[in-house]
Structure formats: structure tokens, C-alpha cells
């Protein structure tokens, strides 16, 4: 699809239009458009703004309520990271389901009749937002740490390493992929958000309870419970076995349903 296609105009056609060269739509343009669509409604704008607002509020809460010795970069990152890990997947869900709930897909898939390209652009736009949000959170947390330690008079504690920040970003990216997966699977904002809360709050509690009361499940849980596996990215040094468990659980709970959802989107009728 890299060659430009000229519109054929027959010379015999009395009312022929001037020929013009039509260039294919570059993917970068699709990503720009999808990014725009994430910000251009009130709901979308405030959802994005909430990333910054949550970071500031969580930072303020740590400064106000945490004991002096708890003013550490790690505590800021945990305080900001928890609410952010809820908001980011919802951003991912809505980027997909908006096309169906608001029926804009009718126009989107008509202007760009290659749904795989549209979804890829959405995924790239979503992940860009996610990674930028993480850096915003990092910056706000660092400012909070400086401010907090200035207030307590203690030296600022910088206890988040680059590797730790990397695994936190990975955890959030996986969370956003979960949202994206639920979006393509359900293609309805309400259903996907309910699905997300089941995924991130109901299932972990249920599996946790099962592990607590059933001996046989205790050793099995890390291989089954995907939230358990992802949560370890936040606070535990990852071992080879932990990575394997992350791979197995995300394969079952994320990658396979994602593949099924993508297949459904590509085939389904857009109404």
C-alpha cells in the first residue's frame, strides 16, 4: 500500500474531473487522530486531566498525613500509582468502546476500512497516553518528595530505582492492555468497565479467599491469578519464576482473550 494511486479519468468523459493523486493514509496520521479523539469531549478531557489531578491530590495527601520518615519517593509513587492503575485501563477501554457506544465506528471504519490499522493506532495512542501519564506521575511524585522533605527538614529519600520504575510502567501497560482487551471483547463501555472491575477487584478477592482456605490452591494461585502476578511488579523484586507466572497468567487472561476480541472486531458487522 505504499504506492500512490491516481484516480483514473477517461478522456471521453465530457464532465471528467481533473485527475488527482491520492496518497494512502499513513499510520502516524491515524495515531494523531486517535489521540485527538481521546481528548476532544468533555468526558475524555476530564478523564485525561484526572491523571494530573490524581497525582497532585495523592502527593498532597502523603505530604499532609504521612509521618516524617514515610516521606520517601517510593511512598509517593505507591500513593499516586494506586488510583492511576484504575484510571489508565478505563482510558484504554473507552478508546475502543467509544466507537461502539457512540456509534462513531460507522464513520471511523468507513473513512479507514482497515479495522486492524484503526485498532493498532488506538493501541499506540493509548500506550502513549499511559507512558506519558507515568512520567507525569513520576515528576509530580518527585516534586512532592522535594517539598515534603523540605517541610520535614530531612534529606529527600530517593528509593525508586530506574528498574523499579520500569516494572511499574510495565504493570500499568499490562493494566491498559487488559482494558483494551475488554474493550475489543465487549465493544460496549458499560460491559467492559464492569468486566474490568470484576477482573481487578472481584476475581483477586475470590482467588485470594480460595487460596486462604484451600490448601491445594495456595501453590497454584500465582500461576492462575493474573492480578496477583501483575501486582508483584509494583513491590517485589521479580525472580525468574515470577516472570514465568506473569507470562502464564497473562497468556490466559490477556493475550488469548485479546486475540479473540481482535478477531471479533475484524469480522463483526458495524451498525
Amino acid at each position: 500500500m505504499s504506492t500512490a494511486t491516481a484516480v483514473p479519468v477517461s478522456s471521453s468523459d465530457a464532465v471528467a474531473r481533473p485527475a488527482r493523486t491520492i496518497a494512502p493514509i499513513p499510520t502516524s496520521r491515524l495515531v494523531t487522530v486517535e489521540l485527538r479523539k481521546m481528548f476532544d469531549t468533555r468526558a475524555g478531557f476530564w478523564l485525561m486531566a484526572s491523571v494530573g489531578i490524581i497525582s497532585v491530590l495523592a502527593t498532597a495527601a502523603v505530604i499532609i498525613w504521612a509521618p516524617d520518615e514515610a516521606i520517601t519517593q517510593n511512598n509517593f509513587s505507591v500513593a499516586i500509582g494506586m488510583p492511576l492503575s484504575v484510571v489508565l485501563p478505563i482510558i484504554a477501554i473507552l478508546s475502543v468502546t467509544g466507537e461502539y457506544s457512540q456509534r462513531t465506528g460507522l464513520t471511523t471504519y468507513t473513512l479507514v476500512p482497515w479495522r486492524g490499522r484503526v485498532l493498532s493506532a488506538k493501541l499506540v495512542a493509548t500506550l502513549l497516553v499511559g507512558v506519558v501519564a507515568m512520567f507525569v506521575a513520576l515528576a509530580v511524585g518527585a516534586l512532592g518528595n522535594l517539598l515534603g522533605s523540605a517541610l520535614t527538614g530531612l534529606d529527600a529519600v530517593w528509593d525508586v530505582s530506574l528498574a523499579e520504575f520500569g516494572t511499574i510502567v510495565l504493570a500499568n501497560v499490562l493494566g491498559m492492555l487488559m482494558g483494551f482487551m475488554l474493550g475489543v471483547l465487549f465493544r460496549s463501555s458499560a460491559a467492559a468497565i464492569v468486566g474490568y472491575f470484576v477482573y481487578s477487584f472481584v476475581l483477586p478477592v475470590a482467588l485470594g479467599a480460595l487460596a486462604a482456605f484451600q490448601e491445594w490452591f495456595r501453590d497454584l494461585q500465582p500461576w492462575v491469578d493474573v492480578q496477583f502476578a501483575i501486582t508483584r511488579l509494583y513491590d517485589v523484586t521479580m525472580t525468574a519464576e515470577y516472570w514465568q507466572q506473569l507470562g502464564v497468567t497473562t497468556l490466559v487472561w490477556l493475550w488469548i482473550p485479546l486475540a479473540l476480541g481482535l478477531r471479533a472486531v475484524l469480522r463483526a458487522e458495524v451498525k
Partner: protein
Amino acid sequence: MISVESLTKQYGRFTAVDHVSFTAATGRVTGFLGPNGAGKSTTMRVMVGLTRPTTGRVTITGRDYRELVNPGLEVGVLLDASAQHAGRTGREILTIAQQTMGLPKTQVAETLARVGLTEDEAGRRVRDYSLGMRQRLGIATALIGDPEVLILDEPANGLDPAGIRWMRDLLRGFANDGGTVLLSSHLLHEIEVIADDLIVIGQGRIVAQGSKSELLASAGTLVRATDVDTLARALHEAAVVTTPIDGGLRVDADPELVGATAHRAGVVLRELRPADGAGLEEMFLELTADTAREGAAA
């Protein structure tokens, strides 16, 4: 030119579109007429790749829709004016289309003016739009890429009489400039004032197609006279079928023959004209009576 070749779409055992074939010619406005649920929208969705056909195919200027590298510049599409994000402003929706197609920014304001949306209206969110304004915005999205082909599903829905007249002039101008227009409607009067050619569909099958003048000709002549009975007898002697209507007859013949017969019979005519609207409407009702939902009542 749009070419539909033996298109069939089945949903399970239900056949929504059944071996439909027709062409919408360049330089003409083709009306796609049928009662609700006749298969118009399904056919149009197949045209633009939103629905996969069970069998058959559609080509636009000789190519499959998915072969177009930037379809918005070649085919303007409006399938449902209500399928626009309620939280976006009209201008924003048009800007998204402009950016997707890679058009200059100035096209947005120009196209808004072309469809008669004011600056103030363009700044409002679509949830505050009337259906007529949504139609205009949808038509703007279809027109912004300066395409050669327009595919519009029920575009006159919600337009006031002035709006319908505006659209007629717009589509007429578009076809005169060498464009192809296919528009659907379930209202005969709406499509009658706009279209050159008509495709009539009922229960997924094409029941009539041809130029409007052909279809009108087959609808006969309307005649009113002082002595209707004598005229009817004279026409029957000329082996012409007549149907009595209020104060006159509908005759399955052209006006010239009816006039000549009346002259020979010495009957004074009060009215003699092609039975256009009424005839076509009767045809439409007749053709779709056994297929339309309202069929039983009609």
C-alpha cells in the same frame, strides 16, 4: 459509478438482501427506494465494507471499497446521521474527518458553509443538534473530501421542506459536475423530487428499476372529464385499461392517446396530465404491498 452484482446477505436463515443487482450511473442521482427493513441500509453497508456480503460484490468506479487507499477522497458516505459522537462539537467531528483524510484545515470552514451550518452552530455539541442539523453535518463529512461518488442513507430524514430543496439542488449540482449519487429513502415524494433513476426494493429484492421518466410513463395518464362514463366506454373500445378515480380516470396509456380518444368521442376534458406522483406512489405501494409491514392494512 457504483455497480452492485448479485448481492446477497443472509443472517442465519433470514435473507436481508437477495440477489440484488443494479448500477448507479455517473452524472445521475439514483434513488434507492423501499419500505423500512427492505434491505437498503444493508446493501449500503456492504458497499462501504462495514458488512460482509454472503455472496456477490460491489464495485465503486471499478474497484472494491477496500482497495481505495484513502476512501474519503473518493466516496462520500453518510449512513446514519445519529451515529455521531454527542459530546463532540460539529466542527470537531468535521475536523476529525479532515485530519483522517489529510486535507487542508481550511476545508472545515468551507464545508460547514457549504452545508449551511453557521459558526455558532458548528461550535455546539452534537447532542444539542436537531436531526436536520445532524444530517447537514453528516453530509459535510461526506462532502469534505471532494469525492466523485456519494452514498447517502436516508439523508432527507429530519430536513424541513427548505432543507430538502437545498439538498436536491446540492445533489443535482454534484451529479451535473460528473459525480455519482446514490441516496435511499422510504418516502417516495422525497426521492421523487431528487432522483433521476429509481431502484425500488422490497423484502431484499429489486422490484422495479429504471429512469424516473420510464417509471412515470408506465404509471399512465390522469384524466378528468364532464362525461366520465362516455370517455371510459370510448377508452374501453380502444382496448385501454382504465381505473375510475374521483371525478375522472387513471388510464394505462399516454396522454396523447387519451386526448385523441376523447376528441373522437366528443367528450369535454377538464384535466389531462401524466399520472406522475399519484401513479408512482400507487406503483410503489403495489410493488411493496405484499412485502411491506403495512401490507396487511393497505
